[in-house]
């Protein structure tokens, strides 16, 4: 047993981190918030060229031929950088929807319960559906995740549910780890009462708990990627949602008044984490699934 990333996996993660740092750093993130632009098609194609969407497609079909463990490492990085757009749905559509693998098509999915769907206006296709339905725009809590209300949900996502939940969990873990970094950096810089606020135990303990939740969730995501077990995937989604949402809230708290401003990035992490927590598998659904599995295991 060697439950640690291989050198190739570490290299892959580092490569994606570098790509995103150069191509979608903080200035790009804030620019897309300011312009309210939808999916950046040029970035989408670059992600496609880097193999982001075709990662798990077999080489014979023009893909990279890697598996879920590699995919979660890559999605963790996208979550850290807060890359907007239907990353998971487009990845799942690779090899199914023309252009998805290369990043020339933007594919959305009806992965939320109820009548809302994300990134509908930018979508060239909907996962598992034959067309793109019309929808009324609604004001989205996340400035980088536009939402539309539709009359009828189209596209059956059930075949994609496990992978969708796992990759979304990986995005959440990346965001959770990023908010730990943001909190620690701010706590080390911001001085009150003549010392950095990070010297106060109350602040330290917030940061430590953020890391504990993120690390437990990260291990759950990696393990689920290795085993593909539906119960482990549900646990990974549940823990990653909690780590991302609570991590962003604690990060906001560490930032004090600054955390409540539009200028700080914290709210972007929190709002995206809220969106992702509703996608593919909610906490209630994950807990029910785990409860049934527990009862089965108790035999």
């Amino acid at each position, binding site marked *: 047993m060697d439950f640690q990333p291989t050198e190739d996996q570490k290299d892959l993660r580092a490569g994606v981190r570098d790509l995103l740092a150069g191509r979608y750093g903080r200035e790009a993130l804030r620019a897309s918030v300011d312009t309210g632009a939808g999916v950046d098609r040029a970035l989408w194609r670059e992600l496609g060229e880097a193999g982001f969407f075709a990662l798990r497609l077999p080489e014979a079909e023009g893909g990279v031929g890697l598996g879920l463990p590699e995919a979660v490492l890559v999605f963790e990085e996208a979550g850290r950088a807060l890359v907007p757009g239907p990353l998971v749905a487009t990845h799942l559509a690779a090899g199914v929807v023309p252009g998805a693998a290369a990043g020339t098509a933007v594919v959305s999915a009806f992965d939320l319960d109820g009548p809302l769907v994300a990134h509908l206006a930018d979508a060239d296709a909907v996962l598992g559906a034959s067309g793109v339905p019309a929808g009324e725009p609604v004001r989205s809590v996340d400035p980088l995740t536009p939402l539309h209300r539709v009359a009828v949900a189209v596209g059956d996502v059930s075949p994609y549910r496990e992978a969708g939940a796992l990759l979304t969990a990986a995005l959440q873990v990346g965001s959770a780890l990023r908010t730990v970094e943001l909190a620690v950096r701010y706590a080390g810089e911001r001085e009150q009462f003549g010392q950095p606020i990070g010297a106060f135990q109350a602040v330290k303990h917030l940061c430590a708990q953020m890391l504990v939740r993120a690390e437990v969730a990260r291990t759950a995501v990696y393990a689920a990627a290795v085993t593909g077990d539906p119960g482990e995937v549900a646990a990974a989604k549940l823990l990653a949602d909690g780590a991302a949402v609570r991590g962003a809230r604690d990060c906001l708290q560490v930032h004090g008044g600054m955390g409540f401003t539009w200028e700080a990035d914290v709210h972007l992490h929190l709002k995206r984490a809220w969106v992702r927590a509703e996608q593919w598998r909610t906490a209630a659904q994950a807990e029910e699934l785990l409860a049934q599995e527990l009862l089965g295991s*108790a035999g």
Partner: protein
Amino acid sequence: MDLTYTEEEQEFRARLRVWLAKVLPELPAAPSPDDWPGRRAYDLGWQRRLYEAGYAGLHWPLDAGGRGATPTQHLIFLEETERAGAPYVGANFVGLLHAGPTIAAEGTAEQRARWLPPVLRGDEVWCQGFSEPDAGSDLASLRTRAVRDGDDYVITGSKIWTSHAEVADWCELLVRTDPSAPKHRGISWLAMPMDAPGVTVRPLRTLAGSAEFAEMFLDEVRVPVADRVGAENDGWRVTMVTLSFERGTAFVGEVVACRRTLGELARTAKANGRWDDPVLRRRLGRLYGEFGALWRLTQWNVSEAERSAGGVPGIGGSVFKLAYSHARQELYDTAAEVLGASSLSLEEGWVLDRLSSLSYTIAAGTSQIQQNIVAERILGLPKGR
């Protein structure tokens, strides 16, 4: 990232299973928790069987009489013994997991030959004389004095929270040998025989009602200078070398046990109708997910330790302990919800476990100290004034 076990590891597991299936039915009945002499005999009997089968000191180095097993083999050993319902390490805890490894790492050849084989054979029990009434989380502020007198140290002071003190043969004792040095520097590590004149042990009852640990009073106890492990005034470093010796495996058996308990709870809830409460059912589901993740985190830490080949393990254990100790307490609070008023009866085994789970956020560094460790040493936040 690979969660499959090698062929060698699988063979090790298979052999262990066969042995456990043979030996466990031969064990005598377990003594009551308050019967310390009975517990000592029982735990040493189990240790003797492990020794005879070649499983004693599995994770100890070969030159210390151990088996030099990899962290993964140790993980498998702890997982399988818990799963099979084998006895807990019990009274041998300090000898096998702390004092022994400390002597193995820092002792002289004579010291290793004197103290290590009896631990492995199940002949001698050790206890840990570290904490004092005014030196708990702030261990380095300990005040028990050892003054040189010829070839002896003369020791005066007191220790507290000393598990197994009533039945121990030896105590790994931290004493202050230089009161004028900075507090981490003037400490030495001694092996003290528990039957030495001047040693008085007074059992302390825990909130669970049992005498789980003791106070120890030391009144001019004489210990030969030759029984000091490591250099004089170097005891803090000697202690730190082994405090994190367990390489991610400290809670393996307990995580396995918690997952089994959750299964029993689900069955109980199904039988008594509480399963129909969606709030409780979901809470059980979430705990199941959490303990599954904690098991994976254990495997992660063990794999990390294995890659660090021989090095002192990292401090990722603090992350695990923080998550685990709180999850364990929530597990037993949830058990009480499943049981309802029955959770007020001490005849329910879970009730004693619920009470004992309260120690997990205190023992071996409180959650608050662990959070400081995570914040300062992992995250790099500044130390407070």
